[in-house]
Each structure stands twice: as C-alpha cells, then as structure tokens.
C-alpha cells in the first residue's frame, strides 16, 4: 500500500488524508521532508541554543499548518489554538464523579487490546495483545493488560472463591487447609512490581516477519504492581514439609482448571505470590479475579488465574500446558520440556513497526527491557542494524524481573536506518541476535523467542518490521 506522503508546509493545504486530524491542524507538527530547521540549526538546538528558538518564532509560525500559503501565515499573529479561546477555557466543565470509575480520554481509543486475526479460531481460547506502541514508563494500565484465556474468562464471585493447599500425599502437608479471600486478606501482604510475558510472545516471528506492529510482535507482555501473600507463608501455615517438597502444582478454578509445575526453590525464595491486588485495586477479571499466582521471571502460563489450589509434591506433573504446549521444538526433533524462564529481552516501542516519523531531526528512541533472571544492567541501541551501538539511558526504577524503560536520543538525518535494542541483565547474559538464536534452536520453536528486534526506517519516515541476523 502506498504511503501517503505528507505535503510540505506552504503547500496549498498541509492537511492530508493520512493525518486529517485536529491535533495535526494545530500547527505543532512540522512536516517532513521540508523541515523548518536546517541540520545546522537542529545541531544548535540540540546543543542548547534556546535563544535561537525564540528568535525563530516567525519562522516557526511560517510552518504552522492548516491555513493558506506561507506569506499569509507569516503575517498571522500566531497559533489559532492560542489566540482563539477554547470551549474548555471559557465554559463550565463536568462535575465530579460523572464517571464513577474513570475512563481514558476519548482521544485515546486507538490504544486498545487487539487480537491477531487468524491466530485462533475462537475468542474464548485466544490472546489479546497489549498496545505497547503507545505506553509510557513500565506499568501497564490494568485495562490494557494482555489476555490469554484457555476456556474463556469469568467474573468469579469472590465470596465463593476458595483457595486450598494440600499434599500429593499426606506426608507433604501436615494440615491441608482452605482459605477464603477474607482469610488471605488478613495476612501480611507484600506488593511488588513484575513483568509477565507469555512464553509464546514473539512466537509468530520465529521463522520470518509475520506481523506489522510491536503490539503483535511483543504485546503478550505486561507489567503491574501485584499485592498478595507469599506462597511460602501459606505453605508454612499448613505445615508443609519444605525439605521433602521439590515441586508444587498450581491449579486454576476456571473451566480449563489450568495446571503448571513450579520448582519449590522459587517458592522458598519468597518471590512466588498468591496475589489479589493489581495496581492498587483488585485483579481484573480477565487477569484472574479474585486470585492468581505470580511467578516472577517465569512465563505467564505459570501465573495461574482464578487460583484454587496448590499441591505440594516431589515430582513434576506433566500437565497439558507443559507436556503438549509450551514445549520448545529443537532442530533434532526433540522438545525441550519445562522451559519456563523468560530470558533477557528488549524491544524499541517508539518508533516501531507501522508508525511513521513525522519529521527529520530530533527523536527519542524509547523501549522496554526485561529479564526473568533479575535486573536489567544495560541496554544498547543501534541505528545501523547492529554494526555500531550506543548505550541507552535506563529510567528508574530498575527492578528485578520487572520491565525497565530505556531511552536514547536520535537525530534522524532522513536517510534509511535500522533500529535495534540489545539488553544485558545482571547475570551478564546479552540478548541474542536472530542469527545466534536460530543457530541454537532452529526456527520452529514457537516459544521463548528473545531475539533482537529490528525496525527499518525508510526515507518516508515509515517504520517497518524486518529481521536482521
């Protein structure tokens, strides 16, 4: 499909079919490729010559779009958005609690969970992807958290939800116990921020580029503050034999009664949490309300939703989602079983596939990095497809098994570029290239694709998904 090229400022009308939108007409945006700043001037600005900007006010005014030819603009008194009083500044706004539960602005509807057409045949056993292309910082708004349901979701009545701990045989748990939400919410809580990534995230891209945007390449990824009780506390409360125990089984209370095996060492570390809270409120129904397991660093399928039971035992359980799915096919025909850790990975979210840069000049490259083995130590960014790299800035906080936001400045000269990010975690592990990952695992694995993502920037400013070895 032909990209609609943006007309230069000063053309008859700078409004285009592509960006026919009020915010574009506001004149804040300068048009490519006729930047109103020359490259030298951009350099001056980037070096802090702000006085230059002030003296260039008229020049900037000349680039304001939405009106006729530039001579008229040069003579105008300024930006209409400033000079004409707006309704929100001159009339009465809405009262408190008009929206008892607040909603995002109506201008933000583009950022929504979406399905990838053709990925599944029925919406109750499917995935919706998180719109990473428009999010800031590291916390995923709860309403945009990605979804993966095996047998549909329910809004479970919390008064009828029960959580049970028992042993594979009586010797593993002295007193099998039942807890209500009333019980669990009396116990000392912990709150921690962690990422959750589906093991199949980026799975469509193992063999070749398949999908256009970061929402679909990496959007089975979210990050929240979770609140709950360490599973260890509950096992101790039941008198579990934590020396004899080697594994626990987590089981969901929905139709699929999802089960996964978790090593006892993770539970003993205190990290595994029986969570009811997410970002300051209760879990959302789509994310397991009223109770889910949080298993930091481990793929999302182990974070069992609508958690109803933990069984303590001494051998793995070979549940459906660890014996038929979530197993990694290697080139020799063997499947790696119980692969669970989400290894160090990163992706640039802005600019990313399906987006168009509006102009040459200064941009901030921004993205996310994470590791299932701990903290992110550094992120490097390349603008030339991985030949040369510069170190990105990590935004704080940088937390273990949590998303880390990185940024890097970039002055785009208008020539084609290939953007990549490469994360290193605190164990020293460096995110692999596609060439390295495929050399180790072939191209048919579906799961645990943590290869370096490449976004190609064309002269038009259009960004597309490509793969570089």
């Amino acid at each position, binding site marked *: 499909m032909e990209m609609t090229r943006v007309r230069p400022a000063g053309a008859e009308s700078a409004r285009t079919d592509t960006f026919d939108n009020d915010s574009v007409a506001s004149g804040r945006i300068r048009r490519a490729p006729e930047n109103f700043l020359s490259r030298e001037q951009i350099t001056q600005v980037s070096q802090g010559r702000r006085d230059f900007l002030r003296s260039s006010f008229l020049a900037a005014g000349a680039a304001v779009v939405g009106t006729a030819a530039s001579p008229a603009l040069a003579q105008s008194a300024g930006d209409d958005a400033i000079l004409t009083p707006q309704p929100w500044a001159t009339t009465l706004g809405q009262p408190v609690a008009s929206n008892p539960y607040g909603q995002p602005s109506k201008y933000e509807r583009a950022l929504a969970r979406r399905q990838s057409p053709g990925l599944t045949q029925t919406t109750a056993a499917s995935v919706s992807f998180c719109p990473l292309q428009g999010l800031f910082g590291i916390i995923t708004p709860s309403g945009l958290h990605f979804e993966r349901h095996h047998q549909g979701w329910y809004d479970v009545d919390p008064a009828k939800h029960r959580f049970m701990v028992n042993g594979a045989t009586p010797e593993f748990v002295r007193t099998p116990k039942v807890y209500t939400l009333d019980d669990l919410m009396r116990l000392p809580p912990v709150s921690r921020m962690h990422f959750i990534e589906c093991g199949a995230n980026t799975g469509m891209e193992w063999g070749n580029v398949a999908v256009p945007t970061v929402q679909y390449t990496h959007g089975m990824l979210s990050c929240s503050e979770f609140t709950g009780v360490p599973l260890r506390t509950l096992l101790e409360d039941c008198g579990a034999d934590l020396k004899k125990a080697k594994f626990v089984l987590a089981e969901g209370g929905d139709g699929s009664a999802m089960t996964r095996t978790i090593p006892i060492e993770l539970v003993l570390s205190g990290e595994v949490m029986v969570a009811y809270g997410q970002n300051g409120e209760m879990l959302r129904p789509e994310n397991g309300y009223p109770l889910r397991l949080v298993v930091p660093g481990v793929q999302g399928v182990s974070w069992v939703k609508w958690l109803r039971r933990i069984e303590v035992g001494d051998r793995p359980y070979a549940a459906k989602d660890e014996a038929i799915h979530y197993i990694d096919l290697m080139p020799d025909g063997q499947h790696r079983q119980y*692969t669970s850790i989400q290894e160090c990975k990163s992706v640039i979210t802005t600019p990313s596939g399906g987006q168009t840069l509006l102009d040459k000049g200064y941009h901030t490259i921004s993205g996310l990095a994470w590791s299932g083995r701990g903290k992110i130590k550094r992120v490097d960014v390349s603008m030339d497809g991985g030949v040369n790299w510069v170190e990105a800035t990590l935004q704080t906080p940088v937390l273990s098994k949590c998303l880390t936001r990185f940024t890097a400045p970039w002055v785009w000269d208008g020539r084609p570029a290939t953007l990549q990010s490469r994360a290193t975690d605190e164990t020293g592990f460096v995110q692999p290239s596609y060439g390295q990952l495929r050399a180790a695992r072939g191209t048919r694995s579906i799961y645990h694709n943590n290869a370096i993502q490449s976004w190609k920037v064309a002269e038009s400013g259009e960004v597309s998904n490509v793969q570089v070895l």
Partner: protein
Amino acid sequence: MSRFSKLLAAALLLSAPALAAEPFPGVGRPATPAEVKAWDIDVGPDFAGLPKGSGSVERGMTVWEEKCAVCHGTFAESNSVFTPLVGGTTAEDVKTGHVANLKRPDFPQRTTFMKVATVSTLFDYIRRAMPWNAPKSLSDDDVYAVLAYLLNLAEVVPDDFVLDDRTIREVQGKLPNRNGMTLAHGLWPGPGFGTEKARPDTANTGCMKDCKKAVEQVSALPDYAWNAHGNLAQQNRRIGAVRGKQTGPEEAEADAAAPARALAERQGCLSCHGVSSRIVGPSYAEVAAKYRGQNSAAGLVEKVKAGGEGVWGSVPMPAQPELKDEEAKALVEWILAGAPEK
C-alpha cells in the same frame, strides 16, 4: 532459613510459644477429606491420582461423536477450531518412541500425538477440562473411553482395546513420542531436574563498534501483510512524535456496539456461535435463516435460557440460568435481525 530468621523464630518461641506454633491464629481452616477429594483431581506421569475405571474404544467412539467431534473432527484430525489431535505418527514411531516427522521442517502440522510423551497428561486434561463448553462433565469411565478411542485413532491400540487403570501403564510404553522430551536446557528456574549447571544456549557479547561487516536483512513484512491487522493509523495515538500508517479505510469508532451484541459477548455466546460462521454451534446467520418469519421468538427465548441440543447437532448448548427474560429476548431479537454489529 537465614540465620536472622532462625534467631527470630527462636525469639518467637521463647516469648510467645502459641504464636510460633500457629503464626496466624484464626486464619484458614483444615480442609475436609471430601473437599480435598473433590478438587485434587490431578493425575501424574507416575499415574498417582488415577481413578479406577475403564472404557472401550467402541464406547469412546459413541462419546466422541456426541461431545467431541464437533470441535475436533470425526477422526480428531480437524483443524477448524483447535489444532489437530491425531496424525503425523507412524508404526515405526510407536517402536522407537520418537516421532520422525518432528525432524522435518516441511511437515505442516504438529498434532497432539506427535508431541505428547506422557499418557497421563491426556487423561488428566480430558477429565479436568473437556468437553470444552462443559468441562468436568464426563464420568471417569467416559474419560477412559474417549482416551481409548483417541489412542485407537492414533494407531496406538487396537479396535477391541479396553483402557483401564491397569492397561494405561502398558499404553505409556507405546506412545509415539514417549522419548521425545529433553530436560537439557537452561530455562528451568530451579534444580530438581539435574539441570542446575545448564547454561543459556546463546552467548552474545556487548560489542559496541564495527561489530559486523554487513547488515544481513533476511526477512521483511510482505506488502499483503500490512493490512492484515486492520488500519494501523487507528491503532496509534494521534498526537506525539509518530503516527500510525494508514493501512485501510478509517473505521467507525467501536464504542457503539449493539447492547445485544455486548450481551452476547459477555455471556460467552460468541465463543461458540459466529455471526456468519459456525464455530461449535450454528452461526447466527443460519439461526436467523431457519426461524425468520416463523413467529418463533418466544420459543427461542426459552431455548436460550434452558439450553438444549438436537436441533443443530448433538453438542448441547449450556443453560443460561442467570440471564434475565428481557436479556434473552433482546438476544433473540438481535439474532433474528441478523446479529448486526451496531
């Protein structure tokens, strides 16, 4: 336990022995044996937890055709709702325990029987989660029977086979991919598999300058794939440093879905009924065509609420007891009106 927490525990023991014995008095209660029995339904690879029972291939075929075939196909080969269960294995695989087709990059599908290495997995999963729209409704004998039928379709057991809590152990030794799993990897977050020394299988370095001679781009988004996910301009914010690429016509904002459609989504109706395509049940277009002009709305309202089977096949539609009369009526009117989006 750290030294500090040991000290803490000792201090607690000295000062408040009751508290140390029971750190959270009044929280939780012992589970009754009946409660544990009701929920502890997992069956492990060593067959711990396997209930007594039995089922023949023949009985399994009957259950299959009633409750399973609509999604999985008569021979468990269908790809229309879920990935195929059976196919891609050979008699030679049954001997070796390795599915040879898994080595072929050109082999199109990976069926359940090409992958599964533990027969307990199949029993456990069918019992806990099948049929898909009525999980946990099969008797243990019928779980044995359905699994016997699947094993027969996969040519693991003969037509006259009876699967029970004894013969299932022999079947384990015949699964085509029983030797197809490896634990030799570094992606397990604990010891327990003897893999604690396993290293990550890639070793990139933090090279910063002149890291390679050329950029080898091996794949790019094909032109036809640009619009497969809708209009990307409407999936990006309309302010900021970038805009989404226009890959299709501007679509109307989706905030005005018909209330009945929203209701159908909320009730899970659309998981089994497509508006224009059959999923598990008939499409709404088919339903509307069948009943149009028959003054049948009242009868359909009852049918939606009570559930039923037989009109469109043998897969029962679950009852919707929580649905209010006016909601059921709105749904029926919406369906008969052609199930419009808005």
